[in-house]
């Protein structure tokens, strides 16, 4: 877990090392090599419990990836690592091929272009719907600039546009606290869009949504992919089936299987740990209904 001094020195003097102070402060994400997110041999344990165990994951620029796995498979911990909330014990995490995520904290990573939606919808309940979006809008986040910031024409249009996308135009002046559960989910997705992220991490977007809402969410996710890379963690198999191109199955902190939905669903190991016979059937009926 910890490095010896020699290892530390070797790491420090690596030939390809770019010292932080020499790198441009806010350089664009470098995706010339394909991947926008690259996790290698990442491990983290909490009190001896290995939440993430030698995880390897690559997300390509513009890809839409679904991640499934039973409870405790490490899905949320993985998102915590990518967004800087949790530091892994070992391994590497890169955003594009230039930005080492392990050297950055949450605001830096957010400003770099990684947006995150929590499992439990988290919106600012005491603020209006449009104020929620305004706060999330990409811009200068420094204290003084924030104090003097005003909503310009462009920002207003952007908010209108996102309100349209998340179907909350009529609720723009209402407090976010009074929205329904599904609407809060959408507002949080809208806040992600305001950030104009390169990579969206979306944790259980359709939990608590009605069937039509779920379809609209699926539609939105597919539309977003291409312009942005989207990683969706979801339990609802019907939803995953409706949007997934590539599915990654996590189990006990590492990747168990990866491939198209059909490949994954027919993988005996996956069936064993996760999908199971009964569950799959019920999800299929939901998809048809």
């Amino acid at each position, binding site marked *: 877990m910890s490095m010896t001094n020699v290892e530390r020195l070797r790491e420090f003097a690596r030939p390809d090392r770019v010292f932080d102070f020499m790198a441009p402060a806010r350089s664009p994400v470098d995706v010339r090599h394909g991947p926008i997110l690259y996790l290698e041999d990442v491990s983290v344990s909490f009190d001896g419990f290995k939440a993430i165990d030698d995880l390897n994951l690559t997300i390509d620029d513009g890809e839409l990836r679904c991640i499934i796995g039973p409870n405790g498979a490490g899905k949320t911990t993985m998102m915590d690592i990518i*967004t800087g*909330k949790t530091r892994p014990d070992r391994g590497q995490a890169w955003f594009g091929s230039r930005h080492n995520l392990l050297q950055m904290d*949450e*605001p830096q990573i*957010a*400003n770099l272009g990684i*947006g*995150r939606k*929590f499992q439990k919808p*988290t*919106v*600012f*309940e*005491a*603020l209006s719907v449009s*104020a929620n979006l*305004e*706060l*999330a809008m990409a811009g200068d*986040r*420094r*204290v003084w600039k*924030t*104090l*003097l*910031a*005003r909503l310009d024409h462009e920002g207003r249009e952007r908010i209108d546009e996102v309100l349209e996308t998340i179907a909350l135009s009529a609720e723009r002046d209402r407090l976010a606290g009074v929205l329904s559960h599904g609407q809060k989910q959408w507002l949080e997705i809208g*806040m992600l869009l305001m*950030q104009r992220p390169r990579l969206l991490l979306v944790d259980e977007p359709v939990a608590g949504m009605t069937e039509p809402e779920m379809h609209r969410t699926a539609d939105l996710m597919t539309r977003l992919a291409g312009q942005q890379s989207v990683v969706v963690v979801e339990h609802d198999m019907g939803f995953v089936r409706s949007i997934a191109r590539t599915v990654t199955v996590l189990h006990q902190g590492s990747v168990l299987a990866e491939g198209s939905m059909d490949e994954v669903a027919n993988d005996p190991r996956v069936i064993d740990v996760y999908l199971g016979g009964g569950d799959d059937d019920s999800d299929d009926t939901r998809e048809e209904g």
Partner: protein
Amino acid sequence: MSLATMFKRNSLLDERSTWVTSVVLIVGMLAVVVLHALPSDHAWHLNGSVVSLLGKYLTYMLLALAVDLIWGYLGILSLGHGAFFALGGYAMGLYLTAQDAPLAGWQSAMVHFPVAALGVVLAPGLLALVFGWLAFRSRVTGVYFSIITQALTFALMLAFNRNEMGMGGSTGLTRFDELLSFSLSSEGMTIALFVASGVAVLLAFWGCKAITRSRLGRVCMATRDAEARVRFIGYRVEHVKLAVFVLSAMIAGIAGALYVPQVGIINPSTFAPLFSIEIVVWVALGGRATLYGALLGALLVNYFKTLLTGVMPDAWLFLLGGLFVVVTMFLPQGVAGLMAHLRRRREVTT
């Protein structure tokens, strides 16, 4: 863009509570000045000691405003704001003491008013900066933060009690004569200090209102309600907290500096943890996150304190404790919340 346009754009006075509060403050201040100017045998004449007492209330209101800014809007419960108030007070106390007899060492510089004025905001500001930087960087929040602010003010109380500090030990600083070459005991000075306190309250009220209505103010409220979310949309929460905490400490320092010449003494009891808790009770009773609630709470509680400590001094602490329990259980939004509730009810019935 400048601050001036920010104030204009926010059109501060479009909120009913803001202009009502402003009008009440201004009219109240003018009334006191006029009543004081009446001939002393007139039935409505206010004598100097009453004006000083009202001036003291105004400095408490300013202090309550500082606490509401960070507690009401940012969710940081500081149980040590008395320390910032006291530091501002001691800076002013040193200045007043230096007018009579030259002080030794670094304190000799405090004889100059501009230096002292700088000390009034810098001493609490720097303490808040260092303390806040350490606390917020380590993400100390909630009850843990409250406890260490109590420890901070308690430690300062012990330090200022020592004679070696050169701050008058347990007696503190007192027996002041002159402020800016005017006698402190003159009637003109009494009214000038009262007006200065009133103007400070008014300016701080408008300033705090402007901040809470800016985007920064919304970031504060967002931080209060969902701190992690604010981080993940890219705001440096610790910087926001630090900036507002330092500003709040400076306002508290100014309040302390205005308090000392009107009361005539500053001693370590101002650092007492109990005083800092009392400030929080004012704000809770008045109503959090409204600003005018804090002003109202500070005025009400201190008025009743003056009344009761005159009639039955032993009952005061029981009443204060009882008030806090009643407010917490039945009026979580304080008097301000109660008033808003009654107004809404009236609007519904009519």
